[in-house]
């Protein structure tokens, strides 16, 4: 061994050694955060996965560690980007039309914005099987979404088919992710805004409006119906009840009249002449006081009639009544 140049003093030598040791040490200690794992590569070869905590590795580039956040749910946005996450997040869609414009199965254009939530479940594959894995994942998501939307009508995409699209995209994307060995698990696909393109939006709104209008007209007619018919039914019942009342009244009266007549007739038959005379006289005695004026004519007198004004008013001229 060649002799090293002589150091000025033992103290400095210790300091230098200490510094070297520290540098080596610091490059061989590392921490894995709770949501991460560390993928350890020794001389280029994968040699294991480290759980969260404090770990040592061989220094000088012999061991390399790649940290992958396997516990964290990651998210890719399509057709929009979150500018500032928060309670009221800010979004932009500027310049992302190419990402969100797509064709439906009935050859309409539609603008779809969506989010894919995913996790890295196989850090080895994620790191070493696909170059540009994130970009690949984006491409896959776009391709699958377009395929699924391309198999549906514009109405399905805008309204009823949303859930189905989310599920289907999620499934097919997972199949491709496995085929590509990305080590990614798709957790959820969520459709955000799904709209017709801006230039045709007014006509889509018109459809909604006219649908409302249709409902409104039907409701109006129904309410008119409901206003008139129950009342008419009530009135009909009233008419019938009145008729019933009339009928009762009529029959009862007839029975009353008949029964009175029967009684009187029974008595009458016992003494017809007297009864007749009695009734006649009774009637007259009732009538006479009621009549305003009475003129009694002796059959032997004549010439009274010409003086009478038969319209009932008194003759003023000619003096006296």
């Amino acid at each position: 061994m060649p002799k090293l140049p002589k150091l000025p003093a033992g103290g400095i030598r210790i300091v230098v050694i200490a510094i070297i040791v520290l540098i080596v040490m610091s490059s061989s200690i590392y921490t894995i955060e709770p949501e991460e794992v560390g993928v350890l590569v020794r001389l280029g070869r994968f040699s294991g996965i480290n759980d969260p905590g404090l770990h040592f590795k061989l220094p000088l580039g012999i061991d390399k560690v790649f940290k992958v956040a396997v516990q964290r749910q990651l998210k890719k946005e399509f057709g929009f980007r979150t500018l500032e996450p928060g309670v009221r997040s800010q979004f932009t869609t500027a310049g992302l039309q190419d990402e969100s414009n797509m064709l439906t199965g009935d050859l309409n254009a539609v603008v779809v914005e969506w989010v894919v939530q995913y996790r890295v479940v196989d850090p080895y594959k994620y790191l070493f099987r696909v170059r540009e894995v994130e970009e690949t994942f984006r491409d896959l998501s776009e391709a699958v979404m377009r395929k699924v939307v391309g198999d549906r009508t514009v109405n399905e995409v805008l309204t009823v088919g949303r859930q189905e699209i989310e599920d289907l995209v999620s499934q097919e994307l997972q199949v491709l992710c496995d085929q590509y060995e990305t080590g990614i698990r798709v957790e959820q696909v969520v459709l955000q805004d799904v709209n017709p393109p801006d230039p045709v939006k007014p006509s889509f709104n018109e459809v909604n409006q006219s649908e409302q209008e249709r409902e409104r007209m039907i409701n109006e007619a129904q309410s008119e119906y409901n206003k008139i018919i129950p009342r008419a039914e009530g009135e009909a019942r009233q008419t019938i009840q009145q008729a019933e009342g009339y009928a009762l009244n009529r029959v009862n009266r007839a029975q009353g009249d008949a029964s009175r007549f029967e009684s009187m007739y029974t008595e009458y038959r016992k003494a017809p002449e007297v009864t007749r005379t009695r009734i006649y006289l009774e009637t007259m005695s009732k009538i006479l006081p009621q009549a305003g004026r009475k003129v009694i004519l002796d059959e032997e007198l004549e010439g009274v009639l010409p003086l009478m004004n038969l319209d009932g008013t008194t003759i003023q001229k000619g003096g006296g009544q």
Partner: protein
Amino acid sequence: MTRLAPIVILVLLVIVFANAAFVVNEWEQVIITQFGQPVRDPIVTPGLKFKIPFIQKLHRFDRRFLEWEGAVAELPTKDKVFILVDGYARWRISDPLLFFQRLRNEMGAQSRLDDILDGETRNAIAKHELLQVTRSTNRVPEVDEAMPELKGHLEEISEGREDIRQQVLEAGQARTSDLGIEVLDVQFKRINYGEQVLQDVYQRMTSERRRIAERFRSEGQGEKAGILGDMDRELKRIQSEAYREAEGIRGRADAEATDIYAKAYNQSAEARGFYEFLKTMETFEATVDPETLLLLSTDGDFYRYLKGSGP
């Protein structure tokens, strides 16, 4: 001199070692050439490896799935619609030696893939109609219960997007098999209408929606008229039925009353006479009021008693 010799030897050894040893990473594969000629089998496993220093040269290639992005091109379909197609492919270097011989490096591969895959995409699109490029299956569209009018229509297709994709993939695979690369997958990332076509499509969509909107309006008016018509009919029915029933009730009551009267008054000639008399009296009684001028003849029944009873 003798004191320096070991240091020199050590340094030389380090230099030689550093040139002989190399690390192959997990994502790499390596071929080794000697004076430009490949020697030894390609190294496809990671770890620390050695070669003959200085004489042998190292060429590293990626072992992972690699990306290929197609150029966004406006292509005509069989039905002469210009669409923007943005494709991509994943491929990998399956035979690094062949790859090295045919393409030299990744740039060469990308450019060859451009030629092959862009061309195949163009062919495939030109051989199919837009509907086939868009659709994958002959599924029946789901219907919105609230608005069945908006069901829409998916025309029948014989071949679909997946078939076309498969055709491009197979053609691409066939044409790259002797290049030491393997195309794993071709996808159409984006297919959209060209700017020119888009305007027509917007117009078509607008008119289609207008048509539906008009239909809704007309349906609303029709429904309303129908309901009001129903209402009129119902109203007439209720009123006339009530009238019929009421008159029937009255009529039966009248008949019954008539019967009762007839039974009472018509039981004998005497009864008839008595009834006439009574009724006359009643009528007489009801007729006379304070306005009445009563002319009574002494010849009448009433005064007959008066006269007759005199002295």
